[in-house]
């Protein structure tokens, strides 16, 4: 579902991403771990087609992202760190709009089903987004992905700033989507959450994918050790 071949991005003389080779299959959750500036967000932006790669290529559902920017967006949903919706519109109205512009014609009752599935309390459906917490907004984001029937989900530090309960709920939602066959790529700093939800974990540093791990093969302590070893290298270099 998600494939990158030697995907690179340079800004002037600075390498933001260096020959990234990655594959996330249907029903997999791939967590990209790394410090700030490791290249996680650049990877997501390249997969979204927001920026042009300096070299290499990215594929969503077997379509080259940069050759088919519109077509690839049909298959993907994106939830940024701080999902912003229209504050004067309700959850239902936001969902209706965002699914509508993605070309989906969904009845009001189905929209409620998606919000419900995303874990939003029914009494919040018609409340304005301006009254929502970040966790509630993220749930609307998941509902947008559900309504869009996205095959690929790109998440950029979605649990950052969420309380443990909301973060846990979000993890459960990702598991639900995984069971539906969605391929998820999540950039995060949260090792614990990554271990909880991921099927695969990659550790990035300075634009390079340093390690790739199968989540079920390691414990949280091992993951932490691997992460710190990679980061320590950076600390020593400094």
């Amino acid at each position, binding site marked *: 579902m998600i494939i990158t071949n030697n995907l690179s991005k340079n800004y002037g003389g600075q390498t933001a991403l260096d020959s990234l080779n990655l594959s996330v299959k249907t029903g997999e959750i791939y967590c990209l771990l790394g410090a700030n500036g490791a290249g996680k967000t650049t990877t997501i932006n390249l997969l*979204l087609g*927001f920026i042009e790669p300096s070299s290499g290529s990215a594929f969503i559902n077997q379509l080259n992202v940069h050759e088919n920017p519109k077509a690839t967006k049909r298959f993907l949903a994106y939830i940024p760190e701080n999902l*912003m919706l*229209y504050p004067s*519109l309700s959850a239902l109205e936001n969902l209706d709009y965002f699914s*509508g*512009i993605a070309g989906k014609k969904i009845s009001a009752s189905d929209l409620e089903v998606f919000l419900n599935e995303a874990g939003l309390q029914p009494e919040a459906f018609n409340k304005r987004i301006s009254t929502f917490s970040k966790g509630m907004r993220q749930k609307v984001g998941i509902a947008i992905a559900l309504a869009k029937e996205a095959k690929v989900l790109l998440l950029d530090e979605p649990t950052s700033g969420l309380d443990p309960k909301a973060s846990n709920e979000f993890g459960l939602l990702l598991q639900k989507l995984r069971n539906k066959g969605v391929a998820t790529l999540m950039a995060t700093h949260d090792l614990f959450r990554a271990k909880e939800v991921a099927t695969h974990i990659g550790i990035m540093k300075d634009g390079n994918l340093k390690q790739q791990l199968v989540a079920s093969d390691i414990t949280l302590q091992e993951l932490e050790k691997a992460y710190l070893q990679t980061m320590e290298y950076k600390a020593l270099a400094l």
Partner: protein
Amino acid sequence: MISKTFLKETKELLREGRVRIAFVVVILLLGVSVWISARQYENVNQQYEIAKTAERAIWDNQGEKNPHSAAHYGTYAFKPKYPLSLVDQGVDKYAGSSIFLEAHNRNEAQFSAATDQTGLARFGDLTPDFILLFIIPLFIILLGYNSFTKEREMGTLTLLKSQGISSWKWMLGKWAALFLPIFCITALLFLIAGFLLNGLENFGVFSWSSLFTLFLVYIAYYIVFTNLVLLISAKTKKSGISLVISLCVWIIACLAAPKAASNIAETKHPYPTRQEFAANVLKDRREGVDGHNPWSKEAKLLEVRVLQEYGVDSLHQLPFNFDAYRMQKGEEHEAEVYLKHYNHLKNQYSKQTQVYRGLAAISPYLPTRFLSMSIAHTDYATHWDFADAAEDYRVATQKFLNDNFAENSNYGDWGYRADASFWKSLPIFEYDPPELDFILSENFSNILILAFWIASSFGLLILFTKTI
């Protein structure tokens, strides 16, 4: 996607307090201005009817009188207030409402509304054209300055782009949401004006087609402003900057450009001063026959020519009163002199208009204003047309009076009195303003400029939206 975006934008606008307040303020201002204008229109036309009837009654009931005395006594040509002046008062306030028609002189229109006003008039009047030309574009800015920038500022742009939004459909949705309230307000104003005018049957000939054309002109103006405001919002990063740039455009387009155009036009093609004009007219008048001066060189030459033409030795042998004949020849000479000098003024006016039209490319306000005033019959061109019609009537009246004098009396018979019933046979002055077709053909360049503004601003909007 267009309808979804349109609905979303409309909901957002309706839920914003500033928009609701601005909407109510604009509607109130429009209501008050239409009410004031309607009252004024009704009042002026009542005065027009009363003055016209009274003046004609005075003319008709002069009793027995020498026709040339009647010519000096004179009469008035009253300019009617046209129905669409309710929407655009144009230069009516400054152009004068009546022209005194007398022997030997072409007078300018007098009794303008501006001369009756106090110094407070400097603040301007609350008229529908003020709301239409200045306030509604400001309202468009208020509604639309953050149309695109808010997406950046709120962070929704990223999510929109990830949904694979089509930029032009998105833009059209926003465009429709911004334009619809403007369209509704304008349509409401014109509908109210239409029904008000339709109800005032005794006051001028009201034409729905002219009103509709005027409506289309303003709609075109608002389309340009909507495009400009949206393209500024699409190109800028922050709402504050977008607002400032939009307001600068409004100031340049609606305030600075018209004044600059006016100054440039007047500097390039100035009118003579009133004194210069009067002196030039007097100089030329002296070079021809003066009806009241039988001893002038020109009068003597005329005498010789007429005696030769009729093969007689004495003016007494002529079959008409030579005094009246000379008077008519004097009138004809004076009319020619006035025609020449007024044509020069008109020529300067045409050149100024050309400059205005040339400068109309720098502001959509200019072609809109010209079209609006022309269609409403409140521009200088209509005023010139009225003044020319009044002058034609004055010349014809003088001939009518002098012919009666010449045909019914003998040379030196200044005691001749026309019959009391004679005055009624003078046709009543009627003036028909230019038809809509003629106005539109005369303003074709303004229509083209407005169309250019629409096309270019829309093209740029599409281009800029693609780069968001």
